[in-house]
């Protein structure tokens, strides 16, 4: 039999979400917080994001990824009531909040928590998800893997690079490869607009005259042992390659920056229902999932473009998870959903790809986070007919944040617009 350890709040993942959640849980009164991190150090993906641009919202300065992480790590390490287990992989999680983890010294550990925060982050989409025809040579990397090689391990994956996908990591790596002496031949994007932030198009591609091909994709990878080149083609409105538009680009490396997928294997094992639109758990405004006492934040919940919003979200989850754990101490067993009243569902309507949280309590003044389906010049955002805000120059790559206020609830409830407890968030273009 394994010894079982007990904790108030267990946090799976010690990246930006886990760090902020741990500190928030302590501030909210949790007496015993445990962080389980599979890497040899805290900080998660921030440690390999050595470029600047982090923290503008939160700290009003432009930090590099590691610097942003170091705004949290020393506080976590200095708190004797936060127990950090490094090199520790959580193998299983049950709806009863019991975990099995493996640690290099303690071996298998059983951990039972009063509340759990999922902060496992996300993974990169790989070549396997894209079905690109051609051979299977060395030299095809995801952009984040290449980032780790170049920035932490000291390996240059190649000298002549084509990047498929215009996500932020790919754009950042286009600049990084160029600065390190490689030639980035092209960035190829299947959509008619770039996936990454506009500032990254400017400072990572335009600064170095790297061409960006929109409405285009890689249709063949050439080379037997090593990538020798790729064929790119333009695509039609259905993303089908247009015959006759093929162009061969010699290169030794193909980077894939084609999206991130929240890593929810453990969540699913704990029977946490997921939202197919975000790929992460369905949560309410406290970031509690539909499994009582299990919370989620950061990229495991939905993929963020700004770490500032990850910290914000993690603090909400950390505080709520601490409250849940404390209540359990006083009452013995917590029944149902953290004492919540009426649950309204928010569904994405026209022009909205997803909205989070997906559940809200009646009358709750909360920030709603959302992404639009396509770039639009000017929109009105409305919830079941009640106008919430107007925005200009919106794009899917930039997450929007809107406050749901008491006055909005008054309109929703008075006019009977919130019937059936289902609200619909829509983005309507305006002139």
């Amino acid at each position, binding site marked *: 039999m394994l010894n079982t350890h007990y904790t108030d709040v267990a946090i799976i993942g010690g990246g930006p979400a886990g760090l902020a959640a741990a500190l928030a849980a302590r501030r909210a009164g949790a007496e015993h917080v445990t962080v389980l991190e599979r890497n040899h150090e805290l900080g998660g993906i921030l440690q390999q994001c050595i470029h600047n641009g982090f923290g503008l919202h939160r700290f009003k300065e432009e930090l590099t990824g590691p610097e942003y992480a170091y705004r949290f790590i020393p506080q976590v390490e200095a708190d004797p009531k936060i127990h950090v287990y490094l090199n520790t992989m959580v193998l299983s999680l049950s709806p009863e909040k019991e975990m099995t983890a493996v640690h290099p010294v303690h071996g298998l550990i059983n951990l039972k928590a009063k509340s759990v925060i999922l902060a496992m982050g996300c993974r990169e989409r790989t070549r396997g998800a894209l079905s690109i025809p051609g051979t299977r040579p060395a030299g095809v990397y995801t952009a984040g893997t290449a980032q780790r090689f170049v920035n932490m*391990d000291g390996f240059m994956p190649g000298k002549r690079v084509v990047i498929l996908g215009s996500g932020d990591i790919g754009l950042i790596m286009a600049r990084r490869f160029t600065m390190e002496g490689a030639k980035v031949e092209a960035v190829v994007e299947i959509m008619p607009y770039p996936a990454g*932030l506009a*500032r990254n198009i*400017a400072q990572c591609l335009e600064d170095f005259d790297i061409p960006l091909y929109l409405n285009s994709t890689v249709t063949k990878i050439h080379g037997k042992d090593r990538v020798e080149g790729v064929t790119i083609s333009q695509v039609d409105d259905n993303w089908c390659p247009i015959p006759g538009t093929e162009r061969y680009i010699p290169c030794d490396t193909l980077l894939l920056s084609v999206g991130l997928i929240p890593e929810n294997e453990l969540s699913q094992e704990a029977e946490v229902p997921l939202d197919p639109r975000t790929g992460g758990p369905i949560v309410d405004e406290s970031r509690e999932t539909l499994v009582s006492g299990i919370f989620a934040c950061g990229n495991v919940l939905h993929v963020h473009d700004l770490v500032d919003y990850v910290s914000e979200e993690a603090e909400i989850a950390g505080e709520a998870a601490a409250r849940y754990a404390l209540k359990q101490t006083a009452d013995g067993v917590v029944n149902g959903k953290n004492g919540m009243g009426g649950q309204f569902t928010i569904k994405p309507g026209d022009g909205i790809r997803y909205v989070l949280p997906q559940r809200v309590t009646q009358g709750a003044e909360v920030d709603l986070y959302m992404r639009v389906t396509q770039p639009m010049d000017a929109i009105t955002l409305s919830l079941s007919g009640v106008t919430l805000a107007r925005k200009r120059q919106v794009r899917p790559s930039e997450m929007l944040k809107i406050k749901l206020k008491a006055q909005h609830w008054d309109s929703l409830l008075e006019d009977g617009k919130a019937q059936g407890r289902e609200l619909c968030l829509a983005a309507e273009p305006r002139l």
Partner: protein
Amino acid sequence: MAIDTQVGEELKRKMTCIVCPTGCQLEVQRDGDGKLSITGFQCRRGEAYAENEILNPRRVLTTTVKIRNASLPLLPVRTTEAIPKELLAEAMQVLAQVEVTAPVKTGDVILANILDTGIDVIASRDMKRVEGVA
């Protein structure tokens, strides 16, 4: 993207502001007298960015240097402020020759006054000393 900054030449240029993630689309016009008119910004930092971008474009350089006796072979570093854009490649050459030894603390000066800019290159993370690692 070379821009002749000589006064007496008219200029019209569109650019994306890189100061924050909003990414405002800016438009800069310079009339024959060299006077700049800037539109499209949502805050004053954007206006200042556009002006600098025409007169003296600068970028913060973030890269790595070699480190000994640490858990990783590389230490991430950055310039404390933006340096002139045309010096970026040369600064990379200079930093390729730099090698430091752990332990290092965030903010430690790794190279002072790079290329006589008056701007230092500092460590952007802590790196503990690890015995038995070259």
